[in-house]
């Protein structure tokens, strides 16, 4: 295979096809409609299922149904559409069936706008639908990672019978980069003792999210939490840049993370010993890696395209050992590298504190005009 110049959305769609996705259900929404567009001709061409549903609510429930039969299935959407899917996702989590969802996040809340944003971190990593459950969230920062994470999503979903979300943003979805697609895998149905495939010659199986008896629901809640600990132990992924001798650590995921890489290099050129940790799984979150870094660094800077959501996870990992500062651009705004460079200089050259609320400090600097929004 050789590298091709690929747009993120088309690349994720073709990666899913090659990972053996047998059925796709979705509804168009910018900035991810190209995924649907690609699937609309590619899936029928391969005699697989493509269906544009009447809404995201319907699409996710079609996904739910197909997943119950052991079919490798996915949907994709963007923020407002994913909100509509929350009920279905909760039922999927309650039934423990494998599902892949790509969310190309855009500015919000509400209808918001179609620009790149990371404002759905909490929804995808800490919440979403009702009930006690966790989903695996992968945060690609490039077209190649978007491809690799899409393939990985199907593997993890089936391995753990879990929801896996590829959390991209409009930048990853719309940009073109050289990337390599995987080999085409054959379509296979998931085997095992749970898919409902017709009970000829065997006892019937039941897949449901109803545990009307509270003790039974409690047992199920314990079961999926224990599974989550397995996932935490085995599936944390992240990328490190210049951390070996770093006095200061920038933490950013996805597009904010790769923008920060440019800033970190510029700060290094000025002699600031700064490195970057870019979580690739934001759920499970690389807590222990940040815990270690917080023992040897002098300060951390969290950079996000929102008002500080992953910030709370970083602060949890840092346990107040070192100052954690925040810089964000919400609402569909992308920071430029020199914005983050200015924050790294501030981290390295001004007195810091472990007291107070870093989000509030950042907001106050914006409100008073000390921090110029350019």
């Amino acid at each position, binding site marked *: 295979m050789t590298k091709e110049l690929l747009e993120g959305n088309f690349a994720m769609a073709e990666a899913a096809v090659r990972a053996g996705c047998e059925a796709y259900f979705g509804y168009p929404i910018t900035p991810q409609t190209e995924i649907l567009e690609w699937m609309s001709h590619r899936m029928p061409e391969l005699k697989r299922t493509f269906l544009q549903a009447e809404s995201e609510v319907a699409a996710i429930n079609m996904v739910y149904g197909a997943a119950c039969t052991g079919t490798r299935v996915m949907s994709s959407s963007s923020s407002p559409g994913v909100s509509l899917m929350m009920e279905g996702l909760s039922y999927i989590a309650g039934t423990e069936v494998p599902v892949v969802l790509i969310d190309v996040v855009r500015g919000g809340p509400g209808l918001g*706008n179609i620009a790149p944003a990371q404002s759905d971190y909490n929804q995808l990593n800490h919440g979403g639908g009702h009930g006690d459950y966790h989903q695996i969230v992968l945060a690609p920062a490039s077209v190649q990672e978007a491809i690799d994470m899409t393939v990985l999503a199907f593997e993890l979903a089936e391995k753990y019978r879990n929801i896996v979300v590829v959390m991209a943003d409009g930048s990853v979805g719309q940009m*073109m980069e050289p990337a390599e697609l995987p080999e085409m895998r054959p379509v296979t149905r998931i085997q095992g003792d749970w898919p409902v495939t017709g009970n000829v010659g065997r006892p019937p199986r039941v897949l449901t999210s109803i545990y009307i008896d509270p003790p039974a629901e409690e047992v199920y809640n314990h079961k999926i939490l224990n599974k989550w600990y397995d996932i935490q132990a085995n599936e944390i992924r992240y990328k490190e840049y210049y951390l070996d001798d770093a006095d200061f650590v920038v933490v950013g995921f996805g597009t904010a993370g790769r923008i920060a890489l*440019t800033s970190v290099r510029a700060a290094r050129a000025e002699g600031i010993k700064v490195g970057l940790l870019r979580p690739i799984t934001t759920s499970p979150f690389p807590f222990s890696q940040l815990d270690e870094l917080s023992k040897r660094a002098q300060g951390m800077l969290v950079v996000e395209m929102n008002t500080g959501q992953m910030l709370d996870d970083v602060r949890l990992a840092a346990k107040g050992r070192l100052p954690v500062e925040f810089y964000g651009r919400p609402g569909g705004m992308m920071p*430029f590298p020199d914005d983050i460079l200015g924050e790294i200089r501030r981290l390295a050259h001004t007195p810091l504190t472990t007291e107070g609320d870093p989000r509030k400090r950042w907001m106050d600097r914006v409100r008073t005009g000390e921090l110029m929004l350019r």
Partner: protein
Amino acid sequence: MQTEIVFAGFGGQGALFAGQIMAFTGMDAGLAVTWMPSYGPEMRGGTANCQVIISDEEIGSPLTRTPLAAVIMNLPSLDKFEDRIAPGGVMIVNSSLVNRQPTRTDVDWLMIPAQEIAESLGNRRLLNMVMLGALLQKLPVISIEALEKGLDVHLPERHRKFLKPNIEAIRQGAAFARGELTVEATPGANGHEPEVIPPTSV
């Protein structure tokens, strides 16, 4: 070493495609590239721009505030990007539609009657390639020969018949930038209302 180039104009002037050909050619040379479009509502009939980055290492940010070069196809794009070009950078401005000169003195800029040159080749849609040729003459981040080969390899099949005119347009643009081609902007062209050019597929 990293080079950032903005391509900006009205939808339909070929700004996005010019950037893509640049990105393809960089990729073929084994370099890291990114192509990042403005994909907002402005695509639907207004201004369109993309930023291309070519680098010899993993590219961080796909956008920079201060690109090294810009290909400016209309006046709104000049107004938007002139102040942002890095000192020492390059700006190629389409004098067929832009009725003022840049005011920057620390940027190597060139006014080129790209539309007239394209029309002299028989197709005004060659404007983007004329400007790309002029850019590479001023900023040889990749060679004109490599760009021509890139076009040959990556021009979509349905546009194959435009390969030769595209290559001729690149060469004419480069010749103009070298001062070897004299073309007058059509009298009255500066300042007149731009005609609406229907969008072409990229």
